[in-house]
């Protein structure tokens, strides 16, 4: 028993950063991970919905543009995308705007959140447009026959159904998004993984630090999966093979 208490004692020591205990350091990391994830999830959902709908519209130009959007964000590694937004974009913009961008407080946090959001939006777009095209053609036709405009047929007929179909894959995208938020550490955001590394570099208790981070990710994952399962039961379309 003493051994276990001893093993955990490192978490209650004052951290070298002077902000509190090491447990607190990790919780701050978790908080940043969650904040990045929430912003990124909103960005991914909004942009993914817009681009996903565009991919199914009749206009060839709109389709091609949204296709290019998806290919761009899908074929470049997330890490490289973050570098593009963080290091490259301010250099390419006109001087004044670039300078302003570099001086925005917490610019690395916002870059990570929006970069991760855009990266994930391409995946959301693919899922959503696949769901829309997987629906029976008759639905769109019936909507048109009833005299609905394209916009109305999307908001009243196609999308309410598509979002319900796409819910389970979006859940796993959300879990991916949370894991991917750790890439933010490459541009200096002390999210959960980085805060474990910081704790490690101050204390040399690598095992404890990484174990703590691992457990937190595990609990986070299990919690979100459980919550999403609950919601999934409510939104699953009866008669479709999504609910198990």
């Amino acid at each position: 028993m003493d051994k276990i208490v001893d093993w955990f004692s490192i978490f209650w020591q004052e951290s070298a950063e002077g902000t509190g205990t090491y447990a607190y350091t990790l919780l701050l990391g978790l908080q940043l991970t969650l904040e990045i994830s929430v912003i990124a999830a909103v960005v991914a959902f909004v942009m993914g919905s817009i681009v996903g709908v565009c991919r199914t519209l009749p206009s060839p130009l709109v389709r091609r543009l949204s296709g290019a959007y998806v290919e761009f964000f899908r074929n470049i590694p997330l890490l490289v995308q973050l570098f593009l937004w963080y290091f490259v974009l301010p250099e390419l913009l006109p001087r004044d705007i670039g300078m302003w961008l570099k001086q925005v407080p917490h610019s690395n946090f916002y870059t990570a959140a929006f970069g991760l959001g855009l990266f994930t939006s391409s995946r959301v777009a693919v899922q959503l447009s696949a769901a829309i095209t997987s629906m029976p053609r008759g639905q769109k036709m019936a909507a048109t026959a009833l005299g609905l405009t394209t916009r109305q047929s999307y908001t009243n007929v196609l999308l309410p159904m598509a979002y319900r179909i796409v819910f389970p894959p979006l859940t796993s995208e959300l879990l991916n998004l949370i894991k991917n938020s750790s890439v933010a550490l490459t541009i200096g955001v002390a999210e959960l993984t980085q805060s474990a590394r910081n704790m490690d570099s101050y204390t040399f208790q690598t095992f404890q630090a990484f174990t703590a981070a691992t457990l937190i990710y595990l609990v986070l994952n299990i919690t979100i999966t459980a919550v999403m399962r609950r919601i999934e039961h409510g939104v699953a379309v009866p008669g479709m093979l999504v609910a198990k």
Partner: protein
Amino acid sequence: MFSNFDFQVIIDALPYLFLQGMVFTLKLTLLAAIFGTIFGTVLALMRLSGVWPLPQIAGAYVNFVRSLPLLLVIFWFFFLVPFIAQKMVGSPRPIPIDPFLTALITFSLFEAVFFSEIMRAGIQSLPKGQVAAGYALGLSYTQVMRRIVLPQAFRNMLPVLLTQTIVLFQDTSLVYVLSLNDFLGIAGKIGQRDGRLTEMYIFAALVYFLISFAASQAVRRLQAHTAIIR
């Protein structure tokens, strides 16, 4: 916008970027894909075996690894592998291991989880009658798997396996955090040395894009080519 763009920096760096960086990245990708598929297939077979406790072990491994960020797993392995090697050899201190080898172990074990889910879907998509017919003919479990189930599962899932390999190719860029000399690592180092990060990162993004895009188009064509109409 591009008035200060220095193409010469990129041209000068080309041999180093490709002969060392890209070779590292591609070698890591291909070997990790091969080992990942092998280990992933084993995991899938364990999960479907129904022999206690194999499905539980494989399932726990898959769910555990799947809920962790790859970066954390990379840090874990670069910390742990020298200690494991020490235990295995019985040496008095942790043994420094070649970073490429450590990266290969990490990516193989990590990606195996995703390959195993793909192989599991591939095996389950086959009609049950095939396995039953195999047993009825007197084949053993190994024979049924090796001669009937796995070849078909593998063939049907080849496009998905290759798509996962493209994801793996992009994921290997994360070894940047250990400042290894993969493609992105070298691009970053040269960019920092010459104060030309803009050029190097744009070029790196372009190269990653072209390779991934070309590969995914090729996979799409292969998919149309190999699809079995049922």
